[in-house]
């Protein structure tokens, strides 16, 4: 045995044997035996036991460094941090809700002066579960921010059939949980690099905003407007002191820019777009802004949310005023380096707006959300009695069950999140990265309806399609949207990627469906069902850009319909003449005959539209990378030719 320790020993008996051999070799004159009663054996027992205990703790410590064997929450959290994973907190369930109110008569329509705007922060509830409205719900608009039509108007008539008022419903999205404000006074002793603030409440889902006011004796809480100010310096409500700063959450303190609203003369730049002269949607211009006031959040191993600020300090506080100017400058390069973010000022008051609640218990059934517990509404009409009447008439009901409510991840879930997060990168490398990144552009900046990215001629080709006021595909690309996309992608694209953004292609289709219908069934009902089935299958919301359409699937669905005895034939036409709002884009696959399709046996009018050769394509409509198929007018583009049998 060499004069060194064997690191292969793992157990008490191995250690003791090694120590006895060591003593026999290097101290043979001290003792002649090592049986249990000898004092030397007793002393070696103590050493072997200490070594065994240390080995156990080394094993435990090593176990906690391995993702598969770690059991302590703080070990898993540390592993998550080291792997760049932000541990998610509890998630609030989301549900679609329908707000309904009664509006007075206007000029052949509801009087929109009294249309309520249900503001962010309005609370609705299902028993003890509180949900909050996340975006303003404006009853005066037919569309939501994504361009979807979500308002219905039903006239309410009296016994004589005269319209009394209108029942107007508007859809919105609510999420479980509620906003709360945490206040903390920041004293000079609190200020240190990477200062941490822990919100002493369990179940915090996320931090919305942080405001820091000068002064320590403040009694008023900030307004939501101040919390959501789009700049680091917030104008005080009355235009004078105290000075207010907003801190923004970032993914890492090294992040120097955030995507936010572009301002012009302190006002957001918003482009409004119209169809037929009617303003239908707006796109807010966005830009990357440099920030110094920033923080990151993470959960402690006890489940509390922690805010971590940067390490740059106010030069006036850290650098001695007696120093010479140049020396102050030199010192500021080191001491007041704010690239990782500024610290809040001392002798100030911090207000943290956060969301709490959610969790698995926030998943409730359809219709369970039926109480407005806190109404934050704006109605511009002048008559207070009508305004109060409209407010009183407001009701709410969830049209879908609330889903996706989730507790904090369990240790097992956390292990999987850490393992499978390795590949995720905050940059665009593949075409899929570009698609994913564009779709993460917040809706108010004009997220396109469908986007696809391909590599062509060493360029990244991005094709986008939007929706028009009728909810149909639209190739128009608003300038603001393109500028937003270009600016947004600039921070993520690879340095040598050249990006070109173009409109996608819309291929409008019409269907001729020849079927035999059982004479015992109502023919009109069967035809209506066939039209519904085809329309439903071709619904643009169910397909991605570039996706193939398998006609065999449509045939299968039609054959399943009660009353359909036989599906004889399907013919698909490419409506590409540009008339009636059709697109002029032609389908890129083999056609029957030529563009002046001669086979119009089942068409009432003469047509010049090409018919797709389904036999040549094995019943597949091939979607090119830039193409989406659409049935523009289902009522006339899906024609059923029945035969009674």
């Amino acid at each position: 045995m060499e004069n060194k320790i064997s690191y292969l020993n793992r157990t008490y008996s191995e250690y003791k044997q090694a120590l006895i051999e060591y003593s026999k070799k290097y101290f043979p004159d001290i003792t002649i035996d090592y049986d249990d009663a000898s004092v030397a054996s007793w002393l070696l027992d103590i050493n072997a036991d200490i070594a065994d205990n240390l080995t156990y703790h080394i094993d435990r410590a090593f176990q906690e460094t391995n993702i598969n064997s770690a059991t302590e929450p703080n070990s898993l959290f540390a592993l998550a941090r080291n792997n760049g994973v932000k541990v998610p907190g509890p998630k609030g369930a989301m549900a679609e809700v329908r707000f309904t109110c009664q509006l007075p008569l206007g000029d052949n329509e509801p009087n929109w002066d009294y249309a309520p705007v249900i503001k962010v922060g309005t609370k609705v509830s299902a028993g003890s579960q509180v949900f909050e409205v996340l975006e303003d719900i404006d009853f005066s608009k037919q569309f939501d921010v994504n361009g979807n039509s979500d308002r219905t108007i039903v006239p309410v008539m009296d016994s004589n059939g005269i319209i009394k008022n209108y029942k107007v419903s508007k859809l919105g999205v609510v999420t479980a949980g509620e906003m709360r404000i945490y206040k903390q006074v920041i004293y000079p002793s609190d200020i240190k690099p990477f200062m941490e603030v822990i919100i002493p409440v369990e179940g915090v889902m996320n931090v919305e905003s942080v405001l820091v006011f000068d002064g320590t004796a403040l009694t008023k809480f900030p307004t939501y407007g101040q919390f959501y100010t789009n700049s680091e310096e917030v104008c005080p409500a009355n235009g004078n002191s105290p000075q207010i700063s907003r801190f923004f959450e970032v993914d890492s303190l090294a992040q120097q820019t955030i995507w936010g609203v572009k301002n012009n003369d302190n006002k957001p730049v918003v482009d409004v777009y119209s169809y037929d002269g009617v303003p239908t949607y707006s796109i807010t211009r966005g830009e990357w802004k440099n920030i110094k006031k920033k923080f990151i959040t993470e959960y402690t191993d006890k489940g509390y949310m922690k805010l971590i600020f940067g390490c740059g300090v106010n030069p006036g506080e850290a650098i001695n005023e007696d120093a010479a100017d140049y020396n102050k400058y030199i010192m500021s390069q080191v001491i007041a380096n704010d690239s990782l973010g500024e610290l809040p000022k001392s002798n100030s008051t911090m207000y943290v707006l956060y969301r709490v609640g959610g969790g698995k218990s926030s998943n409730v059934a359809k219709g369970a959300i039926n109480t407005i517990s806190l109404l934050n509404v704006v109605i511009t009409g002048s008559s207070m009695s009508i305004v109060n009447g409209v407010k009183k008439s407001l009701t709410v009901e969830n049209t879908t069950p609330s889903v996706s409510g989730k507790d904090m991840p369990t240790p097992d879930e956390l292990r999987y999140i850490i393992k499978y997060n390795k590949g995720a990168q905050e940059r665009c490398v593949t075409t899929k990265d570009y698609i994913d990144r564009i779709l993460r552009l917040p809706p108010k900046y004009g997220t396109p309806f469908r986007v696809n990215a391909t590599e062509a001629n060493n360029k990244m080709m991005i094709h986008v399609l939007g929706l028009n006021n009728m909810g149909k595909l639209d190739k128009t690309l608003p300038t603001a949207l393109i500028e937003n996309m270009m600016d947004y992608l600039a921070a993520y694209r690879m340095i040598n990627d050249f990006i070109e953004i173009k409109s996608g292609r819309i291929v409008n289709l019409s269907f001729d469906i020849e079927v035999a219908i059982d004479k015992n069934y109502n023919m009109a009902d069967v035809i209506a069902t066939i039209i519904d089935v085809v329309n439903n299958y071709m619904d643009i919301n169910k397909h991605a850009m570039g996706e193939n359409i398998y006609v065999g699937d449509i045939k299968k669905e039609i054959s399943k319909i009660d009353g359909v005895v036989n599906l004889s034939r399907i013919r698909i036409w490419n409506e590409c003449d540009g008339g009636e709002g059709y697109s002029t884009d032609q389908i890129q696959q083999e056609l029957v005959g030529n563009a002046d399709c001669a086979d119009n046996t089942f068409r009432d009018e003469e047509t010049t539209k090409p018919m797709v050769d389904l036999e040549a394509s094995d019943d597949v409509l091939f979607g090119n990378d830039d193409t989406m198929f659409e049935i523009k007018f289902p009522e006339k583009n899906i024609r059923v030719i029945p035969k009674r049998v």
Partner: protein
Amino acid sequence: MVKQYYGIKYPFSDENNDEIYLDLDETYEDMIKSKILHVLFTPKGQRLRNPDFGTDLIKFIFNPSDEITFDSLKKQIKVDINKYVPNVNFTDISIYEDENNDNSRMVIVHYTITKGNKVEATSVAVKI
């Protein structure tokens, strides 16, 4: 020539003139004596990883000072010494009162040591 010792002396002491931190047993008999005392003064359960090592003398501390107690005490010591100290046969134990101290007793353990084919009778006295 290097002097051969037989083990660490028990109870611990450092009265030697050599450059050795603890006194060592210089003879085989000293070693046996150290081992017997080590067994006698270690209550069972105290030795790491060897809870059976030692004696249960502490359990007799409040027993009546009569023949029954002495008999069971002797039996216990004999078993334990035979178990942990090889080549030694426990023969008897004598207990005397300390004339100078009512609370103290002098215990003399008598035993024999087998060395090859020689058997040597000896004893160790302990004040408790």
